[in-house]
């Protein structure tokens, strides 16, 4: 690809009545490819008002989740060639969250759900052994695929249940974290955590369509974690 036709979602609530798309022609580098974040930066060189969020540029901080030709992902670890159709690429903010400006969304509804699941180890038993709380390697293995989440919100904002009910459905990212602590043998709040989730919305609004799993840029499986929570709920039933 020699040049990319990049179309960016633009909206400044202080100036614009409604959102619109702006088009930019981006010269590709010698390899004919680049990361989507670099294409957006090149657009910003042409128009300094283009606004987006990013920090690490290595898929670690989770701050540059966007929707690229209809698919959520992290712009810094997504190659243009993976998402462009021909030489066209449309980049929009993550769906379902309020837009602050251009590609930047207000993550508050997402973090509110994260806060609800108490994403920290809760154990008030005194440690008298003189060392940290131990786990067997098998118990520790259960946390693999759960703790690596970078909270990019790509999963929750690809989930129709979260779009419809962002205040009541906890969403795949926060449920993955809920299960991360439910599955942790060092945590002592398993029953309370499950009880808090046992209503019509928090977990059961997930219908297992697995959009979340198919978009997670870290290759995690929130849908599986949600099913594990449902199994645990049925055990205490």
């Amino acid at each position, binding site marked *: 690809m020699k040049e990319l036709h990049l179309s960016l979602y633009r909206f400044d609530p202080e100036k614009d009545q409604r959102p619109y798309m702006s088009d930019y022609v981006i010269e590709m580098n010698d390899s004919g490819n680049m990361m989507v974040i670099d294409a957006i930066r090149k657009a910003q060189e042409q128009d300094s008002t283009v606004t987006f969020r990013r920090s690490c540029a290595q898929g670690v901080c989770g701050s540059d989740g966007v929707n690229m030709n209809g698919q959520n992902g992290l712009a810094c670890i997504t190659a243009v060639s993976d998402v462009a159709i021909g030489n066209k690429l449309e980049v929009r903010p993550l769906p379902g969250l309020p837009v602050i400006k251009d590609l930047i969304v207000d993550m508050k509804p997402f973090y509110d759900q994260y806060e609800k699941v108490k994403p920290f180890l809760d154990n008030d038993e005194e440690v008298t052994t003189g060392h940290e709380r131990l786990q067997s390697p098998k118990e520790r293995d259960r946390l693999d695929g759960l703790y690596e989440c970078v909270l990019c919100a790509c999963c929750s904002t690809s989930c129709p*249940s979260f779009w*419809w*009910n*962002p205040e009541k459905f906890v969403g795949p990212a926060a449920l993955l974290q809920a299960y991360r602590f439910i599955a942790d043998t060092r945590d002592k709040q398993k029953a309370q955590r499950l009880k808090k*989730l*046992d*209503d*019509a*919305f*928090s*977990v*059961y609004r997930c219908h297992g369509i697995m959009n979340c799993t198919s978009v997670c840029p870290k290759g995690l499986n929130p849908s599986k974690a949600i099913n594990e929570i*449902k199994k645990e*709920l*049925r055990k*205490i*039933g």
Partner: protein
Amino acid sequence: MGTLFWYLQRLSAVVILSYVLYVAISFFVKPYNISAAIWSSDIDGISFKIFSTLFLFSMFFHGIVGLKAVEDDYLSKRTIGFVSSTLSEFSLIFRIIFRVFVAMVVLVTTYVFVLNYLV
């Protein structure tokens, strides 16, 4: 509560499926097309009446859980707002109309069922 509803919804689905299968299989296996008397004695039997009543309750329960999900998902202020912000102001009215419609369907079906079949 969520888990209880999860169980009830699946249980009602099992009842509905069993009833439909039972009626369909009976229809093909028994000589209903030859003798209307066999048909009427079958459906007037007490066990079939109990099964039918259970089926009706399961249908209501299953349907209402599904319709409640439709109402919560598609008739909320937020969702209607995706289509039109003006219409979204009337979401409560849409919900009331939807509920009245569902309640009427339930009442009429129950009335017809009780009057024409059970009594």
